[in-house]
């Protein structure tokens, strides 16, 4: 019996050792894969020092202040490479590997401001700062200062990275429920958790919409004359969760509209909300009851078409 127990222990140790080796091997492969996505040199800018590689546990060591944003989007690993060139500003390229293409899109959408510059699946550039996403990767290339040469290098590094990332990734399906009429494309924000909503549009101090890592949410602005209304759509794991969240939201935010689903808020604008299946939709800051209701109905119509 004693010998058999010892053999079992040995087998367990061997299995653990093999698993450990496999994990280390896979991790090493991932590091090498990430490293291979970034050029060593471009336009006279050369990689400076060792690359930084950070995972979910060590991201705080690299990013001061924004790590939670990436963790909320199910970030896996980032590879950071700094480029230098004599008499020119340094350039930092960061490649963030997310668990899904939807989350790569999400982190891109989080602070999108400008139109596309044709790199990756969506991109923007301003003042020495290029952001884009492609596949499961979100990429940031930042020059310490913009010069004509650094701008060219930033774009070149971005293009080189985008070319190596294959294949393209799927966008979040919930985006298809956004009615296209009057939609401001650069205003679309995709997120999961309350912190994402708080950042873009504070609704309440408590989590009245029951947002968490299992929910998909999209917030977008719509041009309505001089006003900008916001449409929020939240997808829940099931209809029960959606109904519970809708109930909590209505009680907290627009209790007087429990029956009608539409109300005028204290700023003179209109809010509306509906629940359909596993989705809750809310409109904020519409200029009239008709506009608020119209946007909600348009979203419901899209949802019924797209979700079939």
């Amino acid at each position, binding site marked *: 019996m004693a010998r058999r127990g010892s053999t079992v222990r040995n087998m367990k140790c061997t299995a653990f050792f093999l698993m450990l080796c496999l994990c280390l091997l896979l991790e090493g492969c991932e590091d090498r894969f990430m490293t291979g996505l970034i050029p060593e040199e471009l336009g006279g800018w050369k990689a400076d020092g060792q690359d930084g590689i950070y995972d979910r546990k060590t991201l705080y060591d690299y990013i*001061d202040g924004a790590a939670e944003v*990436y963790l909320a989007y199910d970030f896996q690993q980032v590879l950071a490479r700094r480029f230098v060139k004599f008499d020119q500003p340094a350039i930092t390229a960061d490649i963030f590997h997310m668990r899904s293409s939807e989350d790569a899109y999400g982190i891109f959408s989080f602070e999108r401001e400008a139109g596309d510059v044709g790199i990756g699946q969506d991109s923007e550039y301003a003042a020495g700062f290029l952001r884009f996403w492609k596949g499961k990767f979100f990429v940031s290339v930042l020059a310490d200062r913009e010069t004509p040469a650094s701008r060219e290098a930033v774009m070149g590094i971005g293009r080189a990275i985008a070319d190596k990332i294959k294949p393209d990734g799927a966008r979040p399906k919930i985006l298809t429920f956004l009615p296209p009429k009057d939609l401001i494309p650069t205003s679309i924000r995709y997120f999961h958790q309350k912190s994402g909503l*708080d*950042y873009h549009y504070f609704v*309440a*101090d408590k989590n*009245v919409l029951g947002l968490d890592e299992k929910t998909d949410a999209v917030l977008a602005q719509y041009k309505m004359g001089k006003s900008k209304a916001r449409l929020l759509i939240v997808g829940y794991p099931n209809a029960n969760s959606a109904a519970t969240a809708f109930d909590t939201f209505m009680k907290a*935010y627009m209790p007087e509209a429990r029956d009608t689903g539409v109300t005028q808020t204290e700023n003179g604008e209109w809010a509306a909300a509906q629940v359909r299946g596993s989705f809750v939709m809310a409109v904020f800051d519409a200029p009239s009851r008709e506009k608020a209701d119209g946007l909600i109905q348009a979203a419901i119509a899209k949802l019924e078409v797209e979700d079939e």
Partner: protein
Amino acid sequence: MTKDEHIITRRDFMRGAAAAALAAAVGFPTEAVAAAGEKSRVVLIRDPAVLDGKGKIDPSVLGHMLDEAAAKLLGKNRAAAAWKSLVKPTDMVGIKSNVWARLPTPPELEEIIRQRVVAAGVPASKVFCDDRGSLDKFRASTALINVRPARTHHWSGMGGCIKNYIIFSPKPSQHHPDSCASLATVWDLPVVKGKTRLSILVLLTPQFYGRGAHSFDPRYLWDYKGLAVSLDPVAVDAVGAHILRTKRVRHFGEDKPITPTTHIAVADRKYHLGVSDLSRIELIKLGWTKDALI
């Protein structure tokens, strides 16, 4: 959520009700009616000559600014007397700066503070300046001068004097939830508790909005050319947050979304570290007043 839990919503802001409670909850600036009690004093000093056309600091102008602000803050006629009232020759003085590469505490200012502390009688060997270096040195210190630039911060809304001590926490990330609401608890740790003699918020080129993984975008720095000094880290941060927000509104035409500066109001109302209501802050403005934004 419990059934009886009070929920504060955006509509409460629209109603303009319960401003103080709302400010505590989400950190929006408020001009709420002052509560009884002493005001905290903040001295804001600005000088257009402190930076040249290329953004280079003139140390002599900066030194003069700091001296004048310290004297005014402490009600002394001479800066030397002010510094002597802040530190004793027997002190071990740590200057807690900030090394964030894109907007660090200016080395010129670190050196000026070091000189003033030495001139006040503290042996040079007992004055050090550090950020993320040896925790043991900070543990051994008996007095701290807290100095860092003001900037928007992705998770706390603003990186200011309160947040500058987060590095003393055994686990900084534990303070990140709810917009870093619990940051003031760091000030209760033995390494810093009761040691801070002066808080200096550097407003030479503050950052009023940030983007990207590094929360940095050079477009959103501006030459404010100021320093804000106080004995109250909460008050000096409240002044800084107001200036950053006002600049944001002025620049964008609206208040762009940033994480609310909850931790400043919470540091006041929950942890009683200082005063966050502007109406309870005695703000003394010295020097250049153009576009002071407060």
